[in-house]
């Protein structure tokens, strides 16, 4: 009989077999049993504090880990999430909320009103809508472990809507410990009460972010709908894989290496449409809107006539055809508040909608005192849609031979730095840059940061118009939807008169996923939910 001691070859064979068997044997078995949802998102999770930045990816990360008091359902209507019941005083100034039973943080401690109060205070220092809400807040106090009271100085009608907001800077509930950290300092620990737990030890910024199911999460009884309803987690683990190359991302989906692609490049959609087992879906309010931002501090655009002149030069449809050639993704939208949403209105857009009129534009520029000074354009050269939009704009403006353009090419990182400069263009400032926003953010005049005309407090470009700001305030206090719609029309007319910026194009980017493996995928604008998804 051969023994290993007598036969070195047998030793070798045994060692090889043992090594082969040990290659991740327990791990491989666990992997087979474990349901892992692999998703490539539009950006990489680089910061784990969802209040520290307004980046959408931080909101997506936040929605995985943290829970919210209210959430938007699939129709974008607010619904209670952590809140069980609430009452409103007859004068609509005092809201009393009660948290539902069974809410726990990932460290096992119960969620209390103190955590909520501290979280809302921290969020209210960073988010635009939150800041406004806090401006009307008289007090926010924890009455007992599960009850808290929000007292307002005025009957501000948007409290519940803002608490249910989606998009960026969502009001998440953190532990009091983290919520007491200064709002401009990033938190260190990520302990939420949401349906997934963040795996810090597996986090590789720039590559992969891992979440595991929070087994003690108590979902609501209602069926999942958007961000609302029961957040029932049906997979064990979610991996956000950062695939910066769009070609590789679509190849990985086609090959089945990832299950979900949040933001497939529009150029690759025809390939994905034809791929068996891959499905494309989008929410009606999903989409991006272009912003051609004008600097109101310096000539020529410190004069309203020069800004109005731009409406006669810019052709909305050209941007759509360049950025999203597929007509099914396009919306020729002339609404500052987005199209396909309740505040949609094109009131006052006639100069923009009509035929382009170089002579009228030239006349208006002359009336604005323009004498051929260089117009400094910050041209980002490394952005998926801003780069082509810049090229379209430059081409359109070059048709106006009376304009002298100073096109300065740079990366997007330089644009975001340069746009903050208030100096004159010749001293390092600027006249025009292009950016974008989401339809869901634009759909409310309050959350739509870039439409604000609060002068020094306004967004980059610093538009300044008291009448418009008064109308925004009126909108926030409007008693019902009909009144808000009426005010949206007035806001739109005023915006087209003052031209804080020029809105161009609205296009949708559907999500793509492996429909042969996944069920229960829900689409939501900007921040897709990862619960309710099951994997075969």
């Amino acid at each position, binding site marked *: 009989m051969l023994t290993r001691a007598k036969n070195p070859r047998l030793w070798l064979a045994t060692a090889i077999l043992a090594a082969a068997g040990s290659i991740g044997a327990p791990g491989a078995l666990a992997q087979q049993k474990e349901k892992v949802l692999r998703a490539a998102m539009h950006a990489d999770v680089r910061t*784990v504090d969802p209040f520290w930045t307004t980046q959408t990816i931080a909101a997506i990360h936040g929605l995985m880990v943290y829970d919210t008091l209210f959430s938007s359902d699939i129709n974008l209507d607010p619904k209670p999430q952590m809140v069980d019941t609430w009452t409103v005083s007859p004068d609509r100034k005092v809201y009393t909320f009660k948290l539902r039973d069974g809410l726990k943080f990932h460290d096992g401690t119960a969620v209390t009103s103190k955590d909520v109060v501290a979280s809302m205070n921290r969020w209210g220092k960073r988010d635009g809508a939150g800041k406004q809400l806090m401006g009307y807040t008289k007090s926010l106090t924890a009455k007992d472990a599960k009850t808290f009271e929000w007292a307002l100085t005025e009957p501000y009608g948007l409290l519940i809507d803002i608490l249910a907001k989606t998009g960026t800077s969502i009001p998440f509930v953190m532990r009091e410990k983290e919520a007491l950290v200064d709002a*401009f300092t*990033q938190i260190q620990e990520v302990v939420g009460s949401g349906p997934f737990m963040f795996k810090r030890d597996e986090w590789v910024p720039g590559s992969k972010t891992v979440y595991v199911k929070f087994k003690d999460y108590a979902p609501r009884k209602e069926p999942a709908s958007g961000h609302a309803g029961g957040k029932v987690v049906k997979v064990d683990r979610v991996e956000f894989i950062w695939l910066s190359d769009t070609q590789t991302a679509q190849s990985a989906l086609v090959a089945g290496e990832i299950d979900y692609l949040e933001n497939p490049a529009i150029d690759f959609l025809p390939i994905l449409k034809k791929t068996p087992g891959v499905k494309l879906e989008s929410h009606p309010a999903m989409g991006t809107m272009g912003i051609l931002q004008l600097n109101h501090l310096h000539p020529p655009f410190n004069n309203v006539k020069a800004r109005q002149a731009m409406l006669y030069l810019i052709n909305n449809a050209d941007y759509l055809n360049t950025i999203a050639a597929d007509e099914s993704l396009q919306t020729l939208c002339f609404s500052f508040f987005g199209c396909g949403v309740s505040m949609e209105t094109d009131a006052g857009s006639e100069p923009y909608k009509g035929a382009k009129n170089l002579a009228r534009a030239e006349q208006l520029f002359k009336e604005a005192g323009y004498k051929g000074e260089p117009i400094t354009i910050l041209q980002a050269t490394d952005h998926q849609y801003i780069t082509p939009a810049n090229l379209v704009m430059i081409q359109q403006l070059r048709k106006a031979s009376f304009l002298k353009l100073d096109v300065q090419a740079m990366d997007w990182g330089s644009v975001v730095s*340069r746009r903050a400069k208030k100096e004159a263009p010749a001293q390092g400032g600027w006249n025009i840059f292009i950016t974008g*926003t989401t339809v869901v953010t634009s759909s409310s005049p309050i959350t739509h940061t870039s439409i604000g005309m609060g002068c020094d407090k306004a967004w980059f470009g610093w538009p300044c118009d008291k009448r418009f700001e008064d109308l925004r305030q009126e909108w926030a206090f409007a008693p019902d939807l009909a009144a808000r719609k009426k005010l949206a029309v007035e806001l739109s007319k005023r915006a087209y008169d003052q031209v804080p910026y020029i809105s161009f194009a609205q296009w949708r980017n559907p999500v793509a996923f492996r429909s042969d493996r996944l069920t229960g995928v829900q689409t939501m604008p900007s921040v897709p939910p990862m619960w309710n998804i099951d994997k075969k």
Partner: protein
Amino acid sequence: MTAYIVRRLLATIPVMAVVALFVFLLLHLTPGDPAAVIAGDDASPADVEAIRRKLGLDLAIWQQFIIYVGNLLRGDLGTSIFSNLPVLTLVKQRLEPSLVLAVSTLVIAIALAVPMGVLAAWKARSWIDRVVMGFSVLGFAVPVFLIGYLLIYVFAIELRWLPVQGYRPLSQGIDQTARSILLPAIALSMVYMALIARMTRASMLEVLSEDYIRTAHSKGVSTIVVLLRHALKNAAVPIVTVIGIGLTLLISGVVITETVFNIPGLGRLTVDAILKRDYPIIQGLIILFAGAKVLVNLLIDISYVFFDPRIRY
């Protein structure tokens, strides 16, 4: 030799100091603001300013430089502005994929390019020489991303033999690592194969015309022994130099290959940090890359002694 090595190592100190100063100034004098990137598009200018203050980016450049040098002297490369993770932790996360990719690429390149170069020199001006040199021209001319996409299409999408993207660490098994690294290593090795094959051919041609090679032939030494023992060893100095430079380039800057194949290496870490203006990461990485370059150059110089006994330090 020991004195030479010590001298060379001491000489790296002023080199690193100059690199640190240069990188710091370059980063802080070029446009870009990490606070604006962190704050995001919907942030107000006031919020951007508040973040800038919190991060100490509003301090004078000389104050920021003193803090940076102080940390550096304590061995602290800093903390990422975005992720709040120490730069060293981020480097450790990325080191293995970069090293595995670099070594695999060089192994493939050397294993194929050196014999190709030797063969081309031996059969100079024959069709074999032309094929090898034609391949070299292609290796230089075809962009690595194109080779990458072609390899992905054929071997990952159509044949399904290998994965499209991603890196499997060695802890998951060497077979898994090999599967994940094979396509990027092949794609990346093309240009190095071209470079090493051309260098080997040129160097071999020079050596093959030497008198001692003719003597070896006339003494009846076999061609293979003449080529490998007498010629290749004496032609090795420029080849080793090219391989050494290739190694440092591979570790620090293969961002396109890393991006196409989604390999979480140091190249992508560097470029992502530059795009986001994550100053501590950029500064830390450049210091480390400079150190690696100095070290590899030293090793190359030392290796000359083994290939050419006439060289003495």
